[in-house]
């Protein structure tokens, strides 16, 4: 069931109504939410919820065992056992074909030959579960005693298929307290959902045709300039697709009274690669920072700066593998890690150089350099394999970069412009379609629940904007069969 489908609309309306009818009983709300989430997941394949619930049950028991154990050696043993058992499914379904395909003599056992059914969203909820286990081990949280609460937290449908990866420290407690809803939270939820829907159906889906054209394995005659624009289009496409999904997930969750992390924060305007990763897929970056980078650098802290460098390299190597079972993803992760290491090693000289020019110019140059770098790294991300990525980069770096680009590709750039401009203008809002920031300061300050006139003014403007967004989606969405979300494959 996709967010942008009619059956989801019906499913969501029924689930939301029943959920709020049960507002006096948190356990009953969780039960209905869990049942709804499993139906939502089973819509993709009947077997997916079985695997998911097995993971939930095993991690629930292991979390309790770790929490109870006082002997440090046994605790560590239980942690290792948990990490091995809980990541086994992910490694088997997603990576066994890739691993076997890279072992000499077993090349024929490539992913396709194994015919393994990969549960959608497995990387996301496996990381959520591993994060929970590690939080229990590090005593950041108590192991959850209520199975229903824990299962609802892991299976919560808005974040199940494509994140954001829910942190146990912030999201799990919300399934234990009384859920509340207000006019504000509902309007915010609808606003976030609609903006996400716009990004997916209008921007990402329209651009995807040009991206497929540029990244087609048969398209060997495209000029460097067309491929360059194709890579930029993919950057916009993947951002609109994934951040669109995250906005929809956040919007849905808000309507259930659950606040999940904002997964993107204007990454296209970052002034360094490190900043880019603090703004892109934030829940994954936080996860890698807490459970891979921090323990690694802690263990290597006597190495000083070099410990940090090794930590960054390994963290981004793992980030690359997380994204997919293929060398192009590993290269994608590694080049990003190397870029951040370069930024650390050249920090002083870059600060001196940028200090000699006006700050706006320095910022502009830095953003431009980061975008060009990301454009090249996205090629690895989207290419069918490493050889195709290298071929494309070779053409972009050839004389054909200065030839006239294919007009078919260029005209698709127009789809990304409104999204980027609106997000930039709305960067200080609580969410993209938040209009309160444009009301005079005095009006906003007076905006209290008692002040009905102000509330009605704000709601009226929001309603008008929401209608405009709905009309834009209706008129400009790409008329194709339901297009899946790019990050589902992860």
């Amino acid at each position, binding site marked *: 069931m996709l967010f942008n489908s009619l059956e989801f609309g019906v499913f969501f309306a029924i689930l939301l109504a029943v959920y709020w009818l049960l507002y006096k009983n948190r356990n009953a709300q969780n039960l209905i939410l869990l049942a709804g989430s499993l139906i939502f997941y089973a819509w993709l394949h009947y077997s997916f919820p079985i695997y998911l619930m097995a993971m939930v049950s095993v991690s629930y028991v292991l979390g309790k065992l770790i929490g109870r154990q006082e002997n440090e050696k046994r605790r560590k043993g239980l942690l290792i056992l948990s990490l091995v058992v809980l990541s086994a499914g992910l490694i088997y379904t997603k990576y066994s074909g890739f691993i076997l395909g890279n072992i000499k003599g077993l090349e024929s056992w490539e992913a396709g030959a194994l015919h393994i059914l990969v549960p959608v969203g497995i990387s996301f909820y496996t990381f959520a579960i591993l994060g929970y286990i590690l939080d229990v081990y590090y005593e950041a949280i108590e192991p959850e005693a209520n199975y229903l609460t824990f299962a609802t937290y892991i299976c919560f449908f808005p974040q199940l298929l494509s994140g954001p990866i829910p942190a146990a420290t912030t999201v799990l407690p919300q399934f234990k307290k009384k859920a509340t809803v207000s006019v504000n939270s509902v309007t915010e939820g609808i606003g976030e959902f609609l903006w996400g829907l716009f990004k997916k159906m209008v921007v990402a889906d329209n651009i995807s045709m040009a991206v497929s054209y540029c990244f087609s394995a048969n398209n060997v005659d495209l000029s460097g300039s067309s491929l360059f624009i194709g890579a930029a289009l993919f950057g916009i496409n993947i951002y609109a697709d994934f951040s669109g999904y995250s906005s929809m997930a956040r919007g849905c969750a808000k309507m259930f009274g659950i606040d999940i992390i904002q997964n993107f924060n204007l990454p296209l305007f970052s002034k360094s690669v490190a900043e880019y990763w603090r703004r892109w897929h934030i829940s994954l970056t936080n996860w890698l920072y807490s459970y891979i980078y*921090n323990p690694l650098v*802690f263990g290597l*802290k006597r190495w000083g700066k070099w410990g940090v460098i090794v930590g960054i390299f390994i963290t981004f190597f793992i980030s690359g593998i997380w994204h997919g079972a293929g060398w192009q993803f590993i290269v994608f992760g590694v080049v990003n890690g190397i870029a951040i290491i370069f930024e650390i090693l050249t920090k002083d000289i870059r600060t001196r150089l940028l200090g000699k020019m006006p700050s706006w110019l320095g910022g502009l140059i830095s953003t431009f350099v980061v975008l060009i770098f990301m454009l090249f790294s996205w090629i690895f991300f989207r290419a069918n394999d490493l050889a195709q990525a290298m071929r494309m980069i070779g053409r972009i770096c050839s004389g054909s970069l200065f030839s006239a680009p294919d007009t078919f590709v260029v005209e698709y750039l127009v789809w990304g412009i409104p999204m980027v401009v609106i997000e930039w203008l709305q960067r200080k809002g609580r969410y993209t379609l938040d209009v309160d920031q444009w009301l005079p300061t005095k009006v906003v300050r007076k905006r209290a629940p008692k002040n009905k006139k102000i509330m009605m003014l704000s709601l009226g403007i929001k309603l008008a904007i929401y209608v405009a967004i709905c009309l834009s989606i209706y008129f400009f969405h790409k008329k194709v069969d339901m297009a899946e979300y790019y990050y589902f494959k992860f």
Partner: protein
Amino acid sequence: MEENELYGQLNKIYETILKKEGVTVAPETTAADIDGWDSLTHMILMDSIEKHFYIKFKLMEIMKFNNVGDMVACIQKKLAAK
């Protein structure tokens, strides 16, 4: 050790590692308040603090620090146990 003295010594460590003069940390200070104190310098700072006070942090202790006040409380606990 007096709390004021401890904060004074911490300021000097932060100044050395972050290569900045006039760094002042307080109980409520977080990484967001100090330019240059980021995920890359954090563990280097922790290592310097350990060496300076002859103490050892556990990873889970570091992960639980919400601000400098939490860290100072942990340092004081370790110094008192010596």
